[in-house]
């Protein structure tokens, strides 16, 4: 809040973090901005980057207030091709009302004799993804989305609990917000790194990314698992089994082989 001033066009709240799957407290951020407005008169709108969470929270956390129920939320974006359950590339941006999208940003295209409003950074792209999004909405409905996302969260929380039981790992999150969790090595493990674990899992074809956290916590290196549609309890069991099989060899190695500097950067 202390970084907000008259030049702040808006505050971005993230639902949820791609690093560990946790939700940011959108309601609390809005409340803090309400207090700021009472003190200073500054009226700062909020944009929610709901790339993943905007298609999870409505179905499995319906009581969590993070959306347009909060008057300060001006716009929300999500990714149709993440938990919107469509192949890449489709995203969505929704404004609270027509007031929140200034008219002079809308581009009126006189196309083949008709005048159409558009707002985009690019122009031509196939209609397939939008059609597939509509199909998915029709096909699943609210109940279907609740079932699919609820199952993903069941798989994520059970898998994180099983990984915690293996011993050498410490959970940073449990997968009980986004069905995504991060874990690191328990204190005292010096002879292998999370990067070694990621490398060992690749031998069986698993891609489990290892990465360091952003500024202020770059000392923390972790592994992350994203559970999404198609990743079943069975696959989760296979992953745990393979992790279990790799551990004796890692525990016997004399010194770390990979660290953040010998590892291909992972960005999502």
């Amino acid at each position, binding site marked *: 809040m202390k970084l907000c001033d008259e030049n702040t066009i808006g505050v971005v709240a993230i639902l949820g973090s791609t690093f560990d799957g946790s939700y940011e407290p959108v309601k609390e951020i809005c409340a803090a901005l309400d207090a700021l407005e009472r003190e200073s008169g500054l009226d700062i709108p909020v944009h929610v980057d709901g790339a993943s969470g905007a298609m999870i929270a409505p179905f499995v956390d319906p009581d969590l207030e993070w959306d347009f129920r909060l008057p300060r939320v001006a716009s929300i974006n999500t990714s149709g091709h993440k938990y919107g359950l469509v192949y890449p590339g489709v995203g969505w941006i929704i404004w609270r009302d027509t007031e929140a999208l200034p008219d002079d940003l809308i581009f009126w295209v006189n196309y083949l004799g008709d005048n159409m409003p558009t707002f985009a950074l690019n122009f031509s792209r196939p209609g397939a993804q939008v059609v597939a999004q509509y199909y998915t909405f029709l096909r699943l409905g609210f109940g279907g989305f609740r079932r699919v996302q609820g199952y993903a969260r069941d798989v994520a929380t059970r898998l994180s609990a099983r990984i915690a039981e293996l011993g050498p790992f410490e959970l940073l999150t449990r997968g009980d917000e986004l069905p995504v969790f991060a874990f690191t090595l328990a204190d005292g493990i010096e002879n292998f790194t999370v990067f070694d674990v990621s490398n060992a899992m690749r031998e069986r074809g698993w*891609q489990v990314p290892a990465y360091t956290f952003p500024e202020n916590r770059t000392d923390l290196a972790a592994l992350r698992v994203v559970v999404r549609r198609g990743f079943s309890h069975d696959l989760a069991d296979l992953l745990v089994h393979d992790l279990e099989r790799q551990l004796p060899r890692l525990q016997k190695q004399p010194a770390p082989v990979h660290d953040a500097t010998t590892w291909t950067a992972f960005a999502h």
Partner: protein
Amino acid sequence: MTLAHPKTPRQGKDELGVAPLFSLEGMTIPRHSLPDGEMPPDVAYQIVHDELMLDGNARLNVATFVSTWMEPQAEKLMAECFDKNMIDKDEYPQTAELETRCVAILSNLWHAPNADEATGCSTTGSSEAAMLGGLALKRRWQKRRAADGKPGSSPTTGTSRCASSRWRASVSTSRPRRP
């Protein structure tokens, strides 16, 4: 997108081996320039298909957030629409209508106060969507500043540490500030 750049080493020799497909051992085609002539579609398909077998197996990838499975019926619909250009709203009015319905569905789902006046659009992904959200915030702020007779030249946004790289990408829109 992968940016082809001289600093990135090219994969492999200049020639792409066609063998052992269809008993064409010994035949090669250029890897980095157009072949001189045509080839049968089945051969071209097999060459591309076989090379892509080296990509990872999406089912074993717990790194990505992106959907890697859809029902065959959805795939069929997508194949039927690959040739429809979203921007040709006059030529493909029903595709445009389905986009409008999706915007209304999301406005309702996210409790917009008046979903009958749902305002929004599809994009290529959430990064473009986030940038459009940022542009709207910036324009509203500039209008407020102009109304107050103040300069609108140094906008900033507030984000947390875990903000994705898209908010750095939109730095030309406004300068991100993080605690």
